[in-house]
């Protein structure tokens, strides 16, 4: 068990290092640099040279990467090339806003789709099953920006219940952001839901056909009790992995959805940083994303091990 965790952690660290290098190289490969991007049509040779000099862009790329890496290992992610502010604090602020959406999305998606999956499983091949399966598949297939736009049209233009966009900056309070969080969360949840619904449905069908459930039923337990006490825990196990993967996916999904809602989260920051070629910010976000991704997978593996005795004991034999 311990050696397994150690091996996984080492692999995770390697992945992080590799991803930071790849991101750095990818940004280097993009046409233009922060000086030409920020100045746009005003990028006269003098202005570009002046900006490059003041930003230290005239130094070789590997030198800048090494510098950045050294800083990052000490917890210093450098300063943004565009705003001149410390990247760490900036990213943390945006990340906090994104976390608010992410938590609500996961709560929405997990509870909602588990519930729908169980209903679909219990009513297998009858109309509630067909309805739920079809709708969730459609939700998964439609790109998130379309779902987001439809939600805006329905729930902020036609029915003015929620704001269409966030008008505050990254320093908005939770109270200011809260009214605007629901539509982005719903958009992301709709896209996420299909996987979980399918997994939950299959698990419920399997479990309901198993002998111990038949026994439980024969003992006279109600369907509700059978589902909550017996079917749900077993159905949760495969779903756990899907949820972990989805949390990682959320990081990519928010980039698009946050822009549609002008939500001051890390996805929006990432997009504008890529456009500006603001390398320190891109690197920091990429590294944090990689950490989240790796951590989620690690947690899912360990969680699965904890819930599954066969996996848990394998290491000891």
């Amino acid at each position, binding site marked *: 068990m311990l050696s397994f965790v150690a091996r996984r952690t080492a692999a995770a660290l390697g992945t992080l290092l590799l991803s930071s290098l790849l991101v750095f190289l990818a940004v280097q490969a*993009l*046409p*233009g640099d922060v000086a*030409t*991007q*920020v*100045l*746009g*049509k*005003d*990028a*006269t*040779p*003098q*202005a570009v040279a*002046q*900006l490059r000099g003041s930003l230290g862009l005239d130094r070789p790329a590997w030198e800048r990467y090494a510098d950045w890496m050294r800083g990052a290992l000490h917890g210093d992610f450098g300063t*943004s090339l*565009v*705003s*001149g502010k410390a990247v760490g604090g900036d990213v943390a602020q945006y990340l906090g806003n994104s976390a608010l959406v992410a938590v609500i999305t996961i709560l929405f998606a997990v509870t909602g789709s588990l519930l729908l999956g169980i209903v679909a499983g219990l009513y297998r091949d009858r109309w509630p099953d067909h309805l739920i399966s079809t709708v969730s598949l459609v939700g998964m297939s439609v*790109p998130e*920006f*379309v779902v987001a*736009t*439809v939600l*805006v*049209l*329905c729930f*902020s*233009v*036609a029915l*003015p219940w929620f*704001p*269409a*966009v966030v*008008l*505050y*900056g*990254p*320093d908005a309070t939770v109270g200011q952001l809260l009214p605007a969080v629901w539509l982005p969360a719903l958009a992301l949840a709709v896209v996420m839901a299909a996987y979980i619904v399918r997994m939950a449905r299959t698990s419920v069908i399997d479990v309901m056909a198993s002998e111990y459930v038949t026994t439980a039923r024969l003992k006279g337990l109600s369907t509700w009790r059978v589902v909550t006490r017996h079917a749900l825990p077993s159905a949760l196990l495969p779903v756990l992995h899907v949820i972990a993967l989805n949390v990682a996916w959320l990081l990519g999904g928010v*980039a*698009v959805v946050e*822009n*549609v*809602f*002008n939500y001051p989260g890390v996805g*929006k920051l990432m*997009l*504008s940083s*890529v*456009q*500006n070629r*603001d390398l320190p910010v891109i690197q920091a976000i990429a590294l944090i994303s990689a950490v989240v991704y790796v951590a989620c997978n690690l947690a899912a593996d360990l969680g699965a091990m904890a819930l599954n005795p066969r996996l848990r004991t394998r290491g000891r034999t």
Partner: protein
Amino acid sequence: MSDIHHPGRRSVLAASAAGAASLGASWLLSGCSGATAAPVLPAAARPGTPDRGGTLRIARPPASDAETLDPASSLSAYEYLGALYNRLVRIGADGDVAPDLAESWEPDSTARTWTFRLRKGVTFHDGRAFTSADAAYTLRHILDKATASPQAGVLTPLVDPGRLRTPDAHTLVVPLKTPNAEFPSLLTHYNCYVVPEGSGKSIGRTGIGTGPFKLESFAPAGPGRVTAYKDHWAGRPVLDAIAFYSVADMSARSGALLAGQVDLLSQTNLDFATARVVAASDHATIARVKNGQWYVLPMLTTDKPFTDVDVRRAMKLAYDPEHVVKAALQGAGRAGWDNPVPPDDPVHVLTHPRHDPEQARFLLKKAGHENLAVDLYTSAYDPLFTPMALAYQESAKRAGIRIRLKTASADSYYTQIWMKQPLMATYWYTGRPVDQLFNQVFRSGSSYNETAWSDKGFDALLDRARAETDDARRRDLYGEAQRWVIDKGGAMTPMFADRLVGLSRKVRGYSEHGFEFDYLGIGLKGA
């Protein structure tokens, strides 16, 4: 922002990030709200007088995360400038130079020295009186290399900051290095808003000016607010306050307007589909900035085959601008006929060869370019680039020219394609005075000369024009310059488009032309 680096660089986000998001969104919009049976887009803003007071909410694309309130900077937050500051002179509704902080101005007999008489009784928001020292400082601040102002390129060849004179508190004397009868027009640029003396280091955050509104709060690429300045020299503005919100994504901006979260979309030219949805909505509508956008297909005159003036002539004769206006603009604009001076500019001359595909064929044959095939670059940067390119392609086919459309990434369009590829689609905001327009975009060696056209005779003509003190003769010379560009230059101007501005139905007194926005008169009705 964006004079020149165009407005709403960030509005591209939707297009580049989410693929055809904005397009898809407007299609969805029209589908959902049942506005497919398009109503005719309104021709003008709603008439009537606003109520006194109220807060106007403006959504704007941020210039950059490094935005500043320093008017001279290339990263100035454009919308704030007109609210917070005044210039010495501005462009009036008739297109001529009009008084702002300067009440009058006159040149000496050779147009080598200009004297500006400044308004008295004007105060900055911090209570200090405005004097000629502030006006002189503003010019020195723009010319300061450390400011790296885009307008420095225009003013440095003319003005020596060390020779500015302030004989009294309300007179500014500007000796020029070379004669220029159009000099005041160069001070109408939005980099030339007047700031208090010695404020260079702090003005980016304080925003202290003489304008109708004073700064309450400002966050780069974030929200901000200005409130009415009661002691403004021209009287207090109609509104109590303006709230500025920065929304980078164009479809998010339209969504905010449709949901009633904002009252006006600044620096946003709505695409036709979205404009129709907005016009059909209960609380929003469309206003137009007439001929607000100047669309160009620049041919790089340093790249084959456009090094040959006959090929350039053929490219112009080959297509019908009226067809481009019909196909790409759906009539919401005017044919340009390759003349960069907008049709409503006082010096505009109506002169151009007729559309003549046969003559184009003949010229190409003469130049050895029969069956010419060239790449034309476009991008999602602006909704009209691709329709314009398609219309050109279709029209030029009749002259035997084969155009291959290439779509480039929007986010690096102005670093990788503009001034690099021999033929591409681009645009500018109109509102540049004619002297600045020609010297900045068409003069040899200017950093904005997007066709890399270099013609000594044309440059000499521009010098003659700016030195000519007789207004009628100068106008003739600028007319000659227009003919020269049409005949020999590298820029094709297929069209001038109306900018379609989305605003709330409550907005009254909206007036915008070129880089002039009426912050004094705009207000709300029944808010």
